[in-house]
């Protein structure tokens, strides 16, 4: 299933975060809230604007994902690498990997 999720960066750490269905922000892609219609997209956007106003995140952007049984898989390689939280050549950096 094609869907969109909302990604941003944490203001303090700069690390990648995803908007969850409870309106929180998670480092884990799997916790991202899917939007499959314009109404849900608008709701996610509204939540992210509240978070920007609340000074929690920066640079929010929707990304396209393929929503599978195991969770979302970003369509673009760029977003798959972002979702890992670390460069592909240094998966062991402590404290920043998403999983």
């Amino acid at each position: 299933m094609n869907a969109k999720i909302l990604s941003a960066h944490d203001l303090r750490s700069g690390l990648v975060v995803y908007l969850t269905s409870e309106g929180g922000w998670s480092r884990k892609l799997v916790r991202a809230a899917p939007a499959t219609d314009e109404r849900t997209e608008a709701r996610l956007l509204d939540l992210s604007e509240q978070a920007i106003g609340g000074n929690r995140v920066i640079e929010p952007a929707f990304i396209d994902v393929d929503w599978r049984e195991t969770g979302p898989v970003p369509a673009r390689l760029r977003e798959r690498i972002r979702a890992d939280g670390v460069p592909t050549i240094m998966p062991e950096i402590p404290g920043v990997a998403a999983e």
Partner: protein
Amino acid sequence: MYRYDSYDKTLVLERVEEFRDQVARRLTGALTEEQFRPLRLMNGLYLQLHAYMLRVAIPYGTLSSDQMRKLAHISRRYDKGYGHFTTRQNIQYNWPELEDVPDILAELAEVEMHAIQTSGNVIRNVTTDHFAGVARDEVADPRPYAELIRQWSTLHPEFSFLPRKFKIALTGAEQDRAAIRLHDIGLKLKRREDGDIGFEVIAGGGMGRTPMIGPVIRAHLEPEHLLSYLEAILRVYNQHGRRDNKYKARIKILVHELGTDEFTRQVEAEWARIKDGPLTLPEAEFRRIQAMFAPPPYEATDGSDSRFEKSLAGDTAFAAWVDRNVHAHRAPGHAIVTISLKPHGGIPGDASAQQMEIVADLAERFSFGEIRVSHEQNLILPHVKKSDLYAIWWSLLSFGLGTANAGLLTDIIACPGLDYCSLANARSIPLAQKIASRFDDGERLRNIGDLKIKISGCINACGHHHVGHIGILGVEKKGEELYQLMLGGSGAEDASLARITGRGFSEDGIIDAIETVVDTYLNAREEGEDFLHTYRRLGAEPFKRAIYSGETSK
């Protein structure tokens, strides 16, 4: 080395405190991200693919041991224990937290460093020959002039909002190790037939989306007029450079659109107005700065060194390292050491905190406390006694810094690519690693000889792919990485732009293609001919034929 005077110190400290206040206001929400973004960028703080990235300027690539130790300390205390040396002779930290950045900048200020003008449409860190002051083929040391340009360009009020970023490089040597023809302005110190030394001035070179080799706009500029002439160039560019289209905003486009003659005419006309004014170099001030770059007190020697010769004869691995990583020095009995940051399987340009400290210690013990960063992403010990080379090599080996590949195929320039960079379309680092792995054989590499591979993960060309003997450009096609192969570029005194061979390759395919190109060269080369000269002699056709038909020409 240059030492800050009270003006430099005050300027940097005031800037740290200003940014501390700006960060505090950002964290409370008093500044929005839209308001804060230009402020953080003015202090070298980017937001990249995974996190913030802080780019710290290393003026003309020259560092003291104390400065290098501080860079190591910052990486350990505030980051993830490593740093990345760039093609602009800077260092980047990939994981700083916003709240820590003012403290990082305060620590940098303690050792006379900063991150000012490492971003934005301003004059960026001036770069120079990493062998400056010690190269045998040098007419004059470019570093005092590089320092003057640093002072002139730092927070220059007229040039704080140029149409686009602006990069200046200098050399004083015949061999161009600073890629001056690929810069917005390139400067080369030359001796005229009458014996006078002056600058050859090049303007309008560059890489990126529209690569251009810069034309010479003045054959001889008296050094005392350096700053007024630069100011005249910048004024013409600032006034007429395009601001309507980001991709046409660099000075190379202006020079190209106006034509070299008309651009030069405008520069000369502006220069005539300001020449002999306040920007004329005061001789006393120049001598004060020049004195800080005086050669260190080298031990007098006749140049022969039996201990060094004995090690060379008795240890082939050491001899292989000396052959590639040690260069002739102007002082008898001394040498210039290139410390490779390209271990096979490593990340080009990266150094761990421990490695930085080792280099700092070695520089302190053996190189008068001085280190250089090269635009090829290696480190240099510029003042080493030949008799110390063997001990240095052993220390470097112990810490993964002894790879004997300077100038060889695995001494690859690679941009951070899609592993770090938010602009990239493809990864560069894994490709560099796979190439190094395919060619992980010292004898084979030495047989291939001089060969520069340069990899960029997007069209912006931070990895200098346009001037690679073999250049690789990563693109994205249908969601996958695709690599275009380019051949025949050079960033040196014989500058040329690499040309694309044809359709692109997958990651594995490009490595096979490189091997085919190398085999084609080995089969076709004449006695003593390096890759670039074979390519120039034969042209692209035999290489293309071999790559795309699977035939290796004889």
